[in-house]
């Protein structure tokens, strides 16, 4: 392990992690408020060996992973679908504990969270790996990689919390790839963050089993779920997953009572059928209630779907209208900077509560979680 000086760190974080990220949408600007010798670069290839929390030992050194709905049965020396968990002589290990392949201090609006500490920053980390394989993935260079294939920074949970505090980040965000696959790391960072007064948020596809989700939510403060589509076909063919576990995850979040928001990336021709969007909105209303924010976001051609165009703004606006007409009270349009549906409106008096342009807050008309014009209580985590 090589300790880095500040100048070297910047060099590596741009050419190392940045190089791995390639054309991803993750900003490559390094985190600025760091002490001189704070980081250590782990050369590609070094892996952690921390026993996984959710798995079952089977006969003949085989194991069954119980973290996500795939429930991979993994033989000795083999890995699960995520590529970051390995069976070594009948014991299942996470290979990415404490090995962040990217990090950045992001506006919380970038996640996006619009009802969670608006205007604050989230110290955002990811490791390699994902338990899905979405053909539109914006960060496939890390999510579809094995940890040997990314440059990893040794960031212990203590370091993560320390840098969040030093950077005046109100929260730690587990994001960019799929945090479920670095569950143990996320759990420990969240626990430690809670002790030190730093909140934690997970940005996930919600492809996780109920038991680990329940344990995790005791430490988290908010969850954002990427709801890929409302059809089984899309989950199977575009994401290599299944719809039902995600619906169960959303219902579980509702039952637990943690704050959560939903993002729906609208991919032209694949999940932009307005009849399905209407069905989804009705399902959300019936099962989750009218107050869960939903963000319809614009697709940019990426990874295995470079042949498709950008989502027309008109499609996003149609979906926005359908969701509002269905009774959902907080509906947004994302990845269209300057669109009026980026802002939060009071469902009662219809005035702008939180004005936004991209990730920037332009107006704040919320006081103690209420509309300052009419006093309507607005759901969310505000301070």
């Amino acid at each position, binding site marked *: 392990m090589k300790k880095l000086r500040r100048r070297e760190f910047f060099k590596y974080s741009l050419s190392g992690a940045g190089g791995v990220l*390639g054309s991803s949408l993750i900003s490559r600007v390094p985190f600025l408020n760091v002490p001189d010798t704070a980081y250590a670069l782990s050369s*590609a290839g070094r892996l952690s060996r921390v026993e996984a929390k959710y798995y079952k030992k089977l006969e003949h050194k085989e194991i069954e992973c119980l973290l996500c709905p795939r429930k991979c049965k993994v033989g000795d*020396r*083999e*890995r699960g679908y995520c590529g970051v968990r390995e069976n070594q002589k009948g014991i299942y290990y996470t290979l990415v504990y404490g090995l962040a392949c990217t990090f950045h201090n992001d506006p919380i609006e970038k996640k996006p969270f619009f009802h969670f500490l608006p205007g604050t920053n989230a110290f955002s980390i990811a490791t390699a790996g994902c338990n899905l*394989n979405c053909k539109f993935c914006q960060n496939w260079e890390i999510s579809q*990689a094995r940890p040997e*294939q990314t440059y990893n920074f040794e960031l212990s949970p203590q370091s993560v919390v320390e840098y969040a505090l030093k950077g005046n980040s109100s929260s730690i965000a587990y994001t960019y790839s799929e945090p479920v696959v670095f569950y143990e790391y996320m759990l420990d960072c969240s626990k430690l963050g809670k002790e030190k007064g730093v909140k934690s948020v997970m940005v996930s596809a919600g492809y996780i089993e109920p038991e680990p989700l329940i344990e995790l939510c005791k430490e988290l403060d908010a969850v954002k779920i990427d709801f890929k589509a409302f059809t089984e076909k899309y989950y199977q063919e575009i994401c290599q997953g299944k719809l039902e576990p995600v619906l169960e995850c959303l219902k579980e979040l509702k039952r637990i009572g943690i704050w959560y928001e939903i993002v729906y990336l609208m991919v032209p021709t694949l999940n932009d059928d307005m009849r399905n969007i209407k069905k989804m909105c009705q399902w959300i209303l019936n099962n989750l209630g009218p107050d869960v924010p939903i963000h319809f976001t614009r697709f940019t051609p990426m*990874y295995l779907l470079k042949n498709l165009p950008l989502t027309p703004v008109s499609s996003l606006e149609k979906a926005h209208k359908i969701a509002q007409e269905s009774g959902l009270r907080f509906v947004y349009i994302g990845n269209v900077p300057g669109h009026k549906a980026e802002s939060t409106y009071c469902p009662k008096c219809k005035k702008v509560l939180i004005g936004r342009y991209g990730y920037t807050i332009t107006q704040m008309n919320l006081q103690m979680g209420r509309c300052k014009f009419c006093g309507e209580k607005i759901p969310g985590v505000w301070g």
Partner: protein
Amino acid sequence: MKKSRVVIIRSNKVLSKSKQINSSILSEMMKKGISTFSGEFDFRDAIRKFYSPKDVLGMKVNCLAGKGASTHPEVALCFAGLLKESGIKENNIIIWDRSNSELEELGFPLNNKRNGLRCFGTDTSEVGYSRDLYQHLNIGSLLSRIPLYYTNVQVNLPVLKDHSLAGVSCALKNFYGAINNPNKYHDDGCDPFVADLNTLPEIRNQNRLIICDALTVQYKGGPSYHPYWNEEYFGIIISSDPVALDFVGSQIIDQLRQKNGSPTLEKSGIFPKYILTAADKNHNLGKASLEEIEKLEINL
């Protein structure tokens, strides 16, 4: 219709009781096998039918399961010796797989220098995977830079073994070790992913010969090594048709399963359907029926 030839050559003297390999017997098996396969009397002439001194050869071994269920280094080194005797420069031969540590663990002699037989993994720092994504049918992966930039032809050196998800791991599946994300392609018995991957021109066009290590066969419980389901078969299987070789290989696994009282692959629910997919008209990678395969069995 021209049949695909598959040669199985066996000698029970090739392994000692402690499963040590007799190198001279192995060499005789290889020479006889390659000659029979090609129809040439001299093994050197046989090899020259497939490889020329101008070629840079990749020898793709399978070391993922560690000792007991991986390509034996002796098999790779023996064939490398025959290549050398046939006029191939030693430094133009690269034994390769995914990682240096896995090669080293089995006893392969790592070497990335400008002299001697080369042997290294894709994870060697100056090697790695392609920067560009190879998107083909159902596959979206980065490819090892070894077949992309270092070699122009391959000797596929798989090990024959059972695979709890795919049914069989042999010639076609060996190239899962050439992509960065094989873990993404094990659903549905690896079908059609194995076949799709092998139709990538960068893999398909380098195929010449397959020398399959069947000295010992993990007939159940694979791809990991389980000594109680691992049996001496004393064989080397040779073909240039990876589908035909895998088809024959799956029959051998079924024979060993039946001999040892285990249900067949099909009855176990892991029939290797990707082999049939590889033979379909969309993939056209080889033959997967008894009528289309000429199976020659030799006992030394």
